[in-house]
């Protein structure tokens, strides 16, 4: 018992340290902005470096919190760095895409992501993500920032209020999912037992993914926060399959939306590459800490961060805190 407590105390210290570092990572840019933003007094290379550090820390907390890095990236970087929201959203989509691509092959091989479940949903979501990206690029930045703030606050409400179901019990699949064989089987690592699963309410799920695609494209935030509840609570897929399949859907949705940003010149390598590399390195450490950290503590910390970032985006968009 005592050794277990010791084990759990160390990561808790580490977690508090990470939180502090993340706050420092964001405080540096905020101070520089207050001191004159992109003034020549601030060496240009400090920005990509601070971005790399911030993304590394976001990557560490994003994985154990069960939230895509892109969801934290856009409101935090958009709120506290001097980059225009166009470039932040372009980089945000690539960050979410790179994370999804890194995880998808492993999840597919283990059966925790299902190709047959993902592909029909990804078809509609990827088409609508193009519409979302075009809308996002056409709207004034202040309007997108305000809407982003509202969406992020909505995600906070969803994280606080939503329930999940580890293994939803379904009587029978709907006709569409049965026709497309949207079902499968996986070995649950925790219990070691084989789990058969199927889904229901597929037509409603398709409509929901159409809307999720628009949001993912418009804000560049990935959409794992919406995919997982839709797959788990609405369609009745097991929680682990929902999380795994969500990543596979994201890899296709973000690919489509990212091209809109690339073609419009909204992907700036000096912003995108340090973000991707920092987030992926951080996520590797986050994945290692997954087993030892207390998920609920990290979740609370991420909710607080999102609340702060959402309010910042809202106030920046409305001009109350430029």
């Amino acid at each position, binding site marked *: 018992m005592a050794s277990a407590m010791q084990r759990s105390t160390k990561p808790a210290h580490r977690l508090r340290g990470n939180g502090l570092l993340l706050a420092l990572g964001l405080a540096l840019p905020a101070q520089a902005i207050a001191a004159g933003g992109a003034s020549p007094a601030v060496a240009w290379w400090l920005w990509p470096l601070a971005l790399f550090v911030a993304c590394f820390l976001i990557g560490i907390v994003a994985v154990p919190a069960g939230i895509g890095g892109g969801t934290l990236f856009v409101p935090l970087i958009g709120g506290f760095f001097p980059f225009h929201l166009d470039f932040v959203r372009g980089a945000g989509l690539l960050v979410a895409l790179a994370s999804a691509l890194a995880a998808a*092959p492993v999840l597919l*091989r283990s059966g925790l992501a299902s190709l047959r479940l993902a*592909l029909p949903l990804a078809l509609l979501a990827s088409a609508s993500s*193009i519409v979302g990206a*075009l809308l996002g690029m056409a709207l004034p930045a202040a309007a997108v920032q305000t809407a982003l703030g509202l969406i992020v606050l909505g995600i906070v409400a969803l994280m606080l209020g939503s329930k999940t179901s580890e293994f939803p019990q379904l009587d029978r699949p709907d006709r569409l999912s049965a026709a497309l064989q949207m*079902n499968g089987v996986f070995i649950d690592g925790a219990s070691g037992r084989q789990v058969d699963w199927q889904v229901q309410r597929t037509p409603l799920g398709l409509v929901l993914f159409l809307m999720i695609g628009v949001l993912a494209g418009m804000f560049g935030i990935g959409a794992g926060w919406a995919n997982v509840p839709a797959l788990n609570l609405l369609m009745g897929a097991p929680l682990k399959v929902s999380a795994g399949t969500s990543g596979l859907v994201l890899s296709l949705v973000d*690919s489509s*939306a990212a091209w809109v940003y690339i073609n419009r010149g909204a992907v700036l390598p000096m912003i*995108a590459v340090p973000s991707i590399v920092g987030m992926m390195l951080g996520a590797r450490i986050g994945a290692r800490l997954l087993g030892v950290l207390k998920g609920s503590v990290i979740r609370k910390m991420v909710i607080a961060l999102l609340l702060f970032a959402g309010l910042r985006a809202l106030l920046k968009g409305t001009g109350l805190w430029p």
Partner: protein
Amino acid sequence: MAVTRPPIFDAGVPQSRAQRLYATWLDWGARLGLLALVLGFALYVFGVLNPHVPMEQLPGLWSQPAASYLKQTGTPTGWGWLALVHEGDLLNLVGVALLTGCSLPPLLGVAALYLRQRDWPMAAICTLIVAVIVLAASGVLTAGH
């Protein structure tokens, strides 16, 4: 109700042939994309290749909308960057393009597999997703801006 299960392979780990093929091709495509991205960035940031936009000018540009950045720097839209791929910053778009396009080969691979299995709906869905990504990548939807 009887549920059609995907075939099971590899010592009890369930995965269909399509799923395994998709995973393998995606894995290699993503690795290639990331490698190109990191190499391209190293050549750019260490000054091996001259950039299209000098790095010290970036702080004055990255706070402006993308359209304004393009206008001031003369950076081309769409696939115009391919002609300037010898410039450090634009070389990075090769890695970005590989990452955003790496789902296409596995999608085409499993579409062919589904066709052989006479699974017409899934083959059609794969082909349609390829069409959507290719349409987005073509720049047709963003032309004229």
